[in-house]
């Protein structure tokens, strides 16, 4: 199989990032004004690594993913500035046909909703074969064989029989396995997973994550994992980008981020997770679960200053006047907050 060869070639050039997004601005033009869904985002993804992108709903995570795929709905949205370099090619200026050759082949995507992301009138085998036939120019028969092989790889039992079934005959977890099979069928270099487990039962979530990681190991793909679930990030990612209101507020290796979150927003996210595995020697009185007050601001008319300031407990006068620059607080740990150094040590449960 070609998988081994791909994995080997991945090891050869470890240096340059496979995906480099810089100063990406994706805006939506609505009746109420311009929504700056992504506003000056930069991030990079190394070969074979897993990058977690975290943030609340509406902070621009999904739009970032769609921008990389160049799938921003053309009716209202547009990438107004920035650059997305994939394997030393600029994606934003690529011809539509060249972009189609990359989608599903070199960069694949898994969507949040496994229930509706499959065509109800095509058998799942056909849907996997579609991508293979498209990019590897295999005849139908061979593409279908490959589809059955993929179904077996994503651990769907009786893959030959299942390939002939329609999406409504499969459970949610099975459908998400099929989505993974579609995404991985052409052994992509990058897999973008947009909230892949959000719509699933907790017990299935772990299985799907494990499966994704296993497929990643098998193919050597880099994964951009978009989620609002810090628990998922902690288990899977090597690197984390925290997004708020269309911008990156913090970026760090996963251990550093969890050891010492430097942005008040990241802290807010962490303290709003209930914890069950508390050490017994700690105080018997359970820590009260805190929330981040307020909502993600409307991305239409954002005043100057830090976008998080209205919800931030540590906001100072400076925060309301100017947006903080991104600084490297520790090696590889970037944060955009005026008061990052002044924050009190976080009480870890």
């Amino acid at each position: 199989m070609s998988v081994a060869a791909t994995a080997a070639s991945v090891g050869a050039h470890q240096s340059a990032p496979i995906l480099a997004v810089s100063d990406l601005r994706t805006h939506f033009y609505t009746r109420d004004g311009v929504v700056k869904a992504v506003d000056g985002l930069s991030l990079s993804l190394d070969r074979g690594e897993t990058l977690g992108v975290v943030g609340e709903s509406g902070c621009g995570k999904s739009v970032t993913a769609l921008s990389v795929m160049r799938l921003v709905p053309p009716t209202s949205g547009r990438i107004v500035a920035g650059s997305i370099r994939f394997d030393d090619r600029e994606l934003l200026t690529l011809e539509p046909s060249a972009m189609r050759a990359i989608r599903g082949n070199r960069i694949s995507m898994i969507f949040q909703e496994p229930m509706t992301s499959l065509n109800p009138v095509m058998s799942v085998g056909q849907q996997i074969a579609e991508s293979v036939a498209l990019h590897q120019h295999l005849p139908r028969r061979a593409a279908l064989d490959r589809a059955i092989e993929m179904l077996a790889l994503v651990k769907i039992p009786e893959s030959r029989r299942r390939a002939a079934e329609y999406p409504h005959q499969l459970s949610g977890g099975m459908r998400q396995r099929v989505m993974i099979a579609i995404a991985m069928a052409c052994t992509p270099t990058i897999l973008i997973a947009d909230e892949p487990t959000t719509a699933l039962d907790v017990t299935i979530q772990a299985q799907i994550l494990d499966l994704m990681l296993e497929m990643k190991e098998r193919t050597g793909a880099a994964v951009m994992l978009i989620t609002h679930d810090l628990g998922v990030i902690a288990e899977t990612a090597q690197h984390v980008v925290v997004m708020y209101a269309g911008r990156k507020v913090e970026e760090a290796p996963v251990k550093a981020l969890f050891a010492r979150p430097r942005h008040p927003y990241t802290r807010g996210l962490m303290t709003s997770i209930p914890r069950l595995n508390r050490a017994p020697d700690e105080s018997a009185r359970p820590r009260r679960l805190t929330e981040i007050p307020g909502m993600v601001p409307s991305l239409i008319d954002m005043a100057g200053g830090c976008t998080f300031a209205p919800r931030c407990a540590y906001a100072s006068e400076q925060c309301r006047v100017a947006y903080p620059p991104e600084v490297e607080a520790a090696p590889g740990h970037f944060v955009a907050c005026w008061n990052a150094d002044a924050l009190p040590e976080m009480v870890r449960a």
Partner: protein
Amino acid sequence: MTTATATATVTVAPPARGRFGEFVRRHPTVAIGGALLLAIVIASIAAPWLATVDPITIDPSHRLRSPSADNWFGTDRFGRDLYSRVIYGGRVSLVVGLSVAALATLIGLTIGLVSGYLRAVDAVVMRVMDGMMAIPAIMLAIALIALSKASIFIVIVAVTLPEVPRVVRLVRSIVLTIREQPYIEAATAIGTSVPRIMLRHLLPNALPPLIVQATYICASAVLIEAALSFLGAGTPPEIPSWGNIMAEARPYFQLKPWMVLLPGLFLAVTVLAINLVGDGLRDMLDPRLARRM
């Protein structure tokens, strides 16, 4: 048969009845309508072998005969055998009905798919369609035939044109719903091109309601053809069609009512059969209902 498939079929159909019996029980309208329609189609195709004589041979010595062993439905005012004319007349009705349904569906499907998927085309095309919809089929046919010679082809064109916009609207509305489905976005995300998305994803979803619509168009085309022929603006008078047989029999209705009623009965049964098939198909082809059997 292997045991595995045997048990599989048992869960789907009760063992006593065959697949055919099961189908009839489940979709009686399709079965009855289909059987009637099939009988009429076979009769029209096999017309020369069904004890008919040449439907346009004039025999002045046998005019306006009542039904008898020789002339089952009697004869018309030129002495032509009415039974033969009615059986042959089915050919015109079916040819017009089926061609109009096929043409209107094909043209409407193509325009509807493009118009629903490409917004730029949509605005212009839909206004043209609105305009076309305003033309009544019968008026258009009369105008076209006034401009040229009466022929079945002209009838087909005249009936097809006003039906196209109805198909376009149907297909477009389906496409507009489906194009927003996540699986279309997912298909785009694996690099599928726009024409391929139309053919592989949109078309199969649009097909079931379209087939149903096609049967209704077929039924209405059969009726409009009969109406046109009745008015003398349709099928040329020498070719027998249910409409012009009835038109010619009109003066004798009080004396020999069967001359009007028999072709009328054939027309009514044909239209009923097509509509029954259409109704049954609508229930049968709904993917959510059908595939859960």
